[in-house]
């Protein structure tokens, strides 16, 4: 079912939802949010786009196979986990960088935990998109 309203709306919704998902991701360290929810919201953005414009258009938009995001995200989380090992601290210890200057301070504290969360974001995005794409391809 292709409706003009949904199609037009989805073109505006895609960037909005993606920005929102990044907001949720960054918010997640002390407040509700985080990589998992952020990844889900980002995948909703793409799924909505796929509903409105067809799967092929969305695939062209993403360019890479979503399955590729899974090992990327896992790798990022893995690196952020083993990072502290090089400073003689146990696995997964949170390392924090000094606070950023004003224009960037909107990101909040930057540390290994954030990179772990970004990894989760990519894994969730990759898994959800792979599942939904393969289901809609097979029907």
């Amino acid at each position: 079912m292709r409706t003009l309203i949904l199609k037009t709306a989805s073109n505006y919704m895609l960037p909005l939802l993606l920005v929102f998902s990044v907001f949720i991701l960054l918010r997640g360290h002390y407040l509700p949010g985080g990589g998992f929810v952020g990844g889900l919201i980002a995948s909703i953005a793409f799924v909505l786009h796929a509903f409105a414009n067809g799967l092929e258009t969305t695939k062209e938009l993403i360019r890479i196979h979503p399955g590729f995001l899974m090992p990327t995200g896992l790798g990022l989380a893995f690196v952020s986990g083993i990072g502290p090992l090089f400073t003689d601290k146990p696995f997964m210890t949170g390392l924090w960088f000094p606070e950023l200057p004003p224009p960037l301070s909107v990101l909040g504290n930057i540390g290994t935990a954030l990179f772990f969360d970004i990894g989760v974001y990519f894994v969730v995005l990759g898994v959800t998109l792979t599942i939904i794409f393969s289901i809609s391809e097979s029907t």
Partner: protein
Amino acid sequence: MTEQLLLYPLLLQMFLAIVLMFSWSRISWQKGISIIGSFLNLGVAVWLFSHVWENGTQTIQAGNWAPPFGITFVADSLSATLVLLTSIAGVAVSSFSSASVIPSRLKFGYFPIFHFLLLGLNGAFLTGDIFNLYVWFEIIIITSFVLLTIGGEKAQLEGAMKYFTLNILASVIFLTAIAVLYGLTGSLNMADLAGKVAAVENRTLIQVNALLFLIGFGIKSAVFPLYFWLPASYHTPPSAVSSIFGGLLTKVGVYALLRVFTLIFELDTFLQNVLLTIAVLTLFSGAIGALVQNNIRKMFSYLVICHIGYMIAGLGMMTEVAIAGAIFYLIHDILVKTNLFMVTGVIYKLKATNSMKKLGGLYADQPLLSLLFAIPLFSLVGIPPLSGFWPKLSLIGAGFETGNYVLIGAILFASFLTLFVVVRFWAEVFWKNGEKVEKIRNFPYFNKLRNYKKFQIIGPIVFLSIITLYVGFGAENIQALATRISYELMNSEGYIDAVFSNARIMEK
């Protein structure tokens, strides 16, 4: 470097799985990475084992949070031994699967999932936090479910449904038990729980809780009333998968039972009787189940159940000798069962059938291979001086000490039935003149394989057989190890001290 040594097996498996996921569509790369990585992991596991052997229990606090708040990883002798055995089995099965599993199965991510499974196993052995143990169990279930169903044959799906339903049930019971325990004590760290559980006044609730753990782990280790999922599922996937399942999956349940009932809960007479009854019934039902099977893989599945009974018996008697016997049996069983399922895989590759009635004449066709297969088979029976003999000696000795004559009877009965089953297997498959089995076209027969593939299939069996022979002939070393583990389990103060005092929180 060595301070965090006990995390390296986990990190290496995780790293391997990620690299393998990146080379998703390049099967030949995956085979190479998996085999080389497994050898690396074996090296790390040997390093960890020798480090623990010399320096005692190692601990690390993930995230630098002090115990009991953070997640502790603990490597005592038992964990280090099991990680070592896992990596030995990992090397063998990795090589075996790269030659024996067909490409259409491999291309759905067989190797990444396989390494995630090994990650889960290592994690379960190394963690010192009961909720973290649950998480590793989940990883094991999910990966094993994928490995069971890869290929999507009808029989596989049917087996996987039974496997998944009962294992999820076990996980739910386990999770409930953790929740109750947390509600009673407010802690999840196993070393911390050891003291707190003893101080809880409501003993009835603690007993019910202990039973919940027993049921949860009991389903996972396939003991008497709850083993039906095992023979229903283990014969369906490729034999490489069954060998890692048969060798290691049920043993995780046994490990968890050993850990929980020596560290957290004290076994009272009631629980001891429950465990002993379960052991006797498991020995009986597994052995009798094996007796009536015609499918050789189903037969070995029942023997897996039967021999879990020995370990539960050792735990149930709860003396140092008995636990040492159970540990020795665990070591022997992991090696032999992994090997035997690979042997059934080779037999299937030779004859294209698993039916004992149709098989035959293997000794005439392949005398050298048959002699090789004899090593794990007769080690399983425990003909002295092969490896299965020594732990039974300890178990029977402990049985006389504690006066459990019914149990001794059951152990002897199960041993004789195992002997009978294996001898019948030998006579039917190797000595009998088999029927003419029709040749299937396009079937990857063993003789048609290239030489390096033959080596990849036979090499692991030789490797595990040599280690099995060492366990048999060098039994005094293994007995010394088992005695040390048993001493550590019975005197858990060492474990608790290691978690709380050695756990230096590194200065920021």
